[in-house]
């Protein structure tokens, strides 16, 4: 995937001017074609005209990247909801929506490492779940704490899925992925690649917790 190769050359930064990305390609037309492809995959996002953010997971090797695509696709179709815009939104949503919780809350449940902020939940029917939230007074927007995701990809190994979701989401969730791997490495078939300093940091900061038992127990 040439477009991904282009991104992997970039130094990790919080935002890029479009010309910083374009200059990596021989022609402007090819560069814009690649940018379009990457946007479709959910690896980059245009924040404002001429500016992009790039998901930190682009630094992962190709064999890992292919397992991140379902998550990236789901994140692109995510819908955010809020009612009171505080912790209580999460409690209400968890009591009325059935689904697979991932990212912040799942990682916290597994590792006790980072405090959670947003509820990400995979649902079978995103339209139906959105309606349920609306009926309970939630509004769809960009700042809500509750994020519905369409169920895309493999969910047979819940720990593996949560781990890949954390890598794909990137940013602070990358630390969650490292923490999950440190505690549940034996339950993971696909493993990401992380800088040694990051692994050391997580290892140093991790509270002493025992892995919890799960349905993936062999």
């Amino acid at each position, binding site marked *: 995937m040439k477009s991904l190769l282009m991104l992997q050359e970039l130094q990790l930064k919080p935002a*890029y001017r479009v010309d910083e990305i374009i200059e990596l390609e021989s022609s402007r037309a090819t560069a814009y074609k690649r940018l379009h492809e990457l946007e479709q995959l959910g690896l980059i996002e245009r*924040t*404002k005209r001429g500016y992009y953010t790039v998901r*930190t997971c682009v630094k992962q090797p190709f064999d890992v990247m292919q397992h991140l695509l379902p998550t990236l696709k789901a994140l692109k179709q995510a819908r955010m909801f809020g009612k009171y815009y505080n912790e209580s939104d999460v409690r209400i949503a968890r009591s009325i929506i059935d689904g697979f919780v991932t990212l912040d809350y799942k990682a916290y449940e597994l590792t006790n490492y*980072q405090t*959670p902020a947003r509820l990400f939940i995979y649902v079978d029917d995103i339209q139906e779940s959105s309606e349920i939230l609306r009926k309970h007074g939630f509004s769809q927007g960009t700042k809500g704490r509750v994020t519905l995701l369409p169920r895309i990809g493999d969910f047979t190994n819940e720990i593996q899925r949560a781990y890949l979701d954390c890598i794909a989401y990137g*940013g602070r969730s990358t630390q969650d992925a490292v923490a999950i791997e440190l505690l549940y490495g034996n339950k993971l078939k696909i493993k990401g690649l992380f800088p040694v300093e*990051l692994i050391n940091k997580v290892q140093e900061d991790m509270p002493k917790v025992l892995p919890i038992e799960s349905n993936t127990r062999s």
Partner: protein
Amino acid sequence: MNPILEAEKITEELGDVVFIGAVGVMMHLGTRHRRTQDIDLAMVTKLSDEELETRGYRKYFEKRKYVTYTPRRIKVDIYTEDVSGIPVETVYTTSLNFTGKNRIIKVACIEVLLVAKHRAARPQDVEDLQNLCKNKGKSINWALLAKIAKPTEVSEIKTVVSAFI
């Protein structure tokens, strides 16, 4: 652990300390910010290990290095020289007072946090920097930033702010 209450207790026990890292970001952005259980702080008046011990702080050799714990068993990383190359004195003189639940605590200013996060450039710092620029970009003191950061760093932080505001 309530990080604000813990920060207040640390201030009471250690005196002039400035909170940096995730607690610093959280004080600027609100409790919605994600953070780990440890606390990072800058200390201007250095305290010896013995002085820390008399105040209930314990040092242990753990996972290949010495780590300090508060009397409530919270891990603290204490910076006494610089924070990502920014002298501790600068961190202190530019710090802001935040009113906690029971007392005032000192928190690194937004400009110090931006430079420290920019220099660290780990995935978590990239996200923190995006959030700080998105939410606090309009209140950045560019003159102060220029004093503590290199011109290329100022230019890169400007790019991030422009991307969101």
